[in-house]
């Protein structure tokens, strides 16, 4: 009974029923669902970062027009030039009132800047951020301040974007390379397979961190995007091996023979017939790969190869902490954030594995 059922299900990987079924099973896993909610929440934080913590108004009315200076946190060019012309120098609260008495503004939830320390009276009646090792977490600096007085909470909120992007972008790249290399090797076999397998093996043999450090040292002006590209370009070997295995297996299945009999070309067979069936097992290492990409990026930042300032990833916060160990808040908050994110992706990956692997599924039924 169970045997014939599972055989039936494993054959219909590409059908809508398979994914709907997988989703229904996934929803019953409390840990995996909690992880998914957490990641969604992180994405919301990343998207709304300037509205959560910043010193630039989310929206303001100034000299008769409405502006959104907070967009400047995403890209400097998005900050309306009028404020630079009027010599705001980044200090909005006082300048707005002084230069236009009729102005109003909606402020971010937390008035703190990720790039600099907030000065005394910048926000009327508030003291300057404490610097050195005196910035313990308090009501104003939720997660404390670093040695230069920059608010850790603001830094972390704005660093969320990096943490999320690193995982998605680098694994998107690694997934693409891995699937292409694995698919070619697995489908064509012969000398193609020989070549792709050897290349995969070579990339596998080079210690990842060394490869990444070397490449980062080569590229001029490392940016976070280049780091992502490098992590992606070195992290595809596992995906390639798995894809190769799946293609090798599915290449001999009846439906591929049937497709070939109707005259479908290799590209069509690979894309339309094999790939949808191989997708579920390949998705699992990609999810785990996101976790390890985040880990790699924060290790790199931790070693001092992070994104150039003023951008700060969670890992570079930890790097600051190394020389100031008595400032425990510099370790605890970013450390826990990295850990929770990695844990969340691992839990999602594990959940995905359990709901898409027919063997595991049967055992847990």
């Amino acid at each position, binding site marked *: 009974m169970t045997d014939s059922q599972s055989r039936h299900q494993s054959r219909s990987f590409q059908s809508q029923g398979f994914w709907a079924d997988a989703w229904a099973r996934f929803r019953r896993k409390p840990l995996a669902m909690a992880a998914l909610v957490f990641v969604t929440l992180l994405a919301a934080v990343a998207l709304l970062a300037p509205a959560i913590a910043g010193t630039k108004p989310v929206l303001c009315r100034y000299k008769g027009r409405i502006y959104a200076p907070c967009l400047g946190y995403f890209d400097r060019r998005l900050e309306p030039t009028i404020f630079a012309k009027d010599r705001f120098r980044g200090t909005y609260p006082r300048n707005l009132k002084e230069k236009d008495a009729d102005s109003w503004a909606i402020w971010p939830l937390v008035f703190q800047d990720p790039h600099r320390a907030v000065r005394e009276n910048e926000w009327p009646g508030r003291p300057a951020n404490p610097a050195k090792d005196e910035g313990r977490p308090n009501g104003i600096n939720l997660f404390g301040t670093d040695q230069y007085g920059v608010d850790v909470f603001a830094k972390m909120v704005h660093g969320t974007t990096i943490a999320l992007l690193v995982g998605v972008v680098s694994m998107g790249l690694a997934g693409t390379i891995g699937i292409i290399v694995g698919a070619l090797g697995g489908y064509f076999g012969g000398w193609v397979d020989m070549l792709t397998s*050897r290349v995969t*093996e*070579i990339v*596998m*043999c*080079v*210690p990842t*961190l*060394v*490869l990444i*450090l*070397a*490449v980062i*040292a*080569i590229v*001029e002006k490392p940016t976070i995007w280049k780091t992502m590209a490098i992590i992606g370009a070195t992290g595809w070997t596992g995906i390639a091996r798995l894809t190769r295995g799946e293609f090798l297996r599915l290449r001999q299945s009846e439906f591929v023979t049937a497709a070939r009999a109707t005259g479908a070309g290799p590209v069509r067979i690979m894309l339309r017939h094999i790939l949808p069936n191989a997708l579920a097992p390949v998705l699992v290492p990609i999810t785990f790969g996101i*976790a390890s990409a985040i*880990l790699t990026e*924060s*290790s790199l930042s*931790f*070693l001092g190869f992070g994104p150039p300032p003023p951008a700060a990833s969670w890992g570079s916060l*930890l790097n600051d*902490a*190394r020389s100031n*160990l*008595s400032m*425990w808040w510099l*370790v*605890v908050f970013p*450390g*826990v954030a*990295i*850990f929770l994110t*990695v*844990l969340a992706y*691992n*839990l999602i990956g594990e959940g995905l594995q359990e709901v898409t692997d027919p*063997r595991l599924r049967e*055992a847990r039924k």
Partner: protein
Amino acid sequence: MATYLLRRLLLGMLTLVAITFIVYGLARNMPGTPLTVQMGESDPSRKLNPEDQERMKRIYGLDRPWHEGYLRWLGNVVRGDLGRSFSRKQPVTTLIGERIGPTFLVSGTALVLAWLLGVPLGLYASARSGMADERATSLLLYILYSFPTFVAALFLQIVFSVWLRGTAWELPLFGMSDLPADASWAARAADIARHAILPVTCQTYVSLAYDSRFIKANMEEAVRQDYIRTARAKGAGPGRVLFHHAFRNTLIPLVTLLGLSLPGLIGGSVIIEQIFTWPGMGRLFFESIRERDYPTIMGLTLMFSVLTLIGQLLADLLYCLVDPRVSVE
């Protein structure tokens, strides 16, 4: 068997040449040379004048294009010469020899501890599968598995070196030994051991979590097989079914894991050695990249790649040993 080994050896050589070629190319194309990076960073006034730089470049062979430099390096390697470190003025082999001990001390201890604890833990978890205590243990292992090493290292440093400072529990923050070289042998050993506790802990917990989860996953896979039902139908008890029939099959993927952990055993962990300023191979690697010390980078890359290939070969040979279905031919 002989032909198999010969084939593997030739393929391995080919892979080695490819890897070292890539890394040499990468290293030589990094901005800066050992001369500019080293002198310029430490003291701008000591920056070499152009003539001296040219003279030094000639001495080190940096005046020629990098592919020529690679061929020269390869030729020397074949003759058994890994070259001299630019920044440390010592033969690379000597440097490696100095660093291998400390790394092995940490990673060897960690490996043994991880397996000693991880195997029973994994077996325990699969024996008690589904029970409350197993779920708690597995969740804890999962959390450990996702906990980044460098975060854990910093936490440990804060707890044992900052908060517990002045108590009997205080542990040294970094380095391998504080005692002078003329201290007694026993005192030095105790001091090194104290310094090693935190790095070993950090390296152990990750592998421990990984190993035990690996064993549990493979045991669960084995327990679902038909031959387990046969064993139970024969009248074998749960202990015998688990440890004799299932574990013997789990051994097969386990030896692969063991083989793959060989390079890490000697190569060390860059992050952990960097955090605890442990004078091992990982730190040497990191420093040599920063100093553009090509001979050391290449020597370490070669060694690491050789170890990876040996580890793979070892895993495959062990595989034949534990799985009767696989033969070398």
